[in-house]
């Protein structure tokens, strides 16, 4: 990945708006079609909120964010430094259950899987690195 933008923020929901602004600005500048930005925004929120809720205890912690281009796609990496955990390993929710049976939760990770072109995990330097990529325009979506 050719890295264009990297920054670090606190793992706190109050930072969500600023995070989304930074990532979508970077994406737009790298040539991502405007119509793709809401999907990128969604994936950023789902990863970030997951980190806020589960990566650290009360002490809190940071999130490292990197974005750039690779193989004609917009690539985003978000890193937390909590216990090793592979978000990509979670099972899909059951989408067929009706309103009363349907479990609350579990959709965030499913959205990440469904709305990205690639969703990968690696453990690196005490960090959990989630890497997602997006085609630059809707037609390139796989």
């Amino acid at each position, binding site marked *: 990945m050719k*890295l264009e933008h990297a920054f670090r923020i606190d793992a706190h929901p*109050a930072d969500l708006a600023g995070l989304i*602004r930074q990532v979508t600005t970077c994406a737009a500048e790298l040539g991502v079609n*405007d119509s793709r930005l*809401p999907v990128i925004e969604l994936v950023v929120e*789902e990863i970030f909120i997951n980190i806020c809720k589960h990566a650290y205890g009360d002490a809190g912690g940071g999130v490292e964010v990197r974005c750039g281009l690779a193989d004609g796609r917009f690539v985003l990496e978000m890193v937390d430094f909590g216990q090793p955990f592979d978000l990509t390993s979670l099972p899909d929710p059951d989408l*067929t259950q009706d309103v*009363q049976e349907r479990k609350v*939760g579990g959709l965030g990770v499913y959205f990440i899987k469904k709305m990205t072109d690639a969703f990968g995990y690696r453990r690196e330097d005490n960090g959990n690195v989630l890497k997602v990529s997006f085609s630059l325009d809707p037609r390139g979506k796989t």
Partner: protein
Amino acid sequence: LARNVIENITETATVKREMKMEITTSAKNDVLLVTLNGRLDAVTAADFDQKINSLLTEGASSLVLNLHGLEYISSAGLRSILVTGKKLKSSNGGFALVGLRGVVKEVFEVSGFYSIFKIFESEEEALRRSA
């Protein structure tokens, strides 16, 4: 990773967004029409939950949710909508949605919510079928 890290990218006007949500309600016969504008996300979902809870406490038994002005929803927003649906179902109330578009519609489709809720094309129809 390349070393040319640019720390500050100028923010452009194209991605400026209102990170807020607005809820308005109006009664139509026995049905309560709830109109959402803006964003239903991890930050604003708590406001939505609070509003819905007070409407249900006040005795609302049938809700139509108009999402035409909703630009964005995440799994946190869907969770709130599912919880609302469950509450109304367990009290034999009515619950319908109308006005889904753009990424909101896409999120409803991907999550399977499109097939578990009553979703209508027009507000008029939603209100008529929920009465």
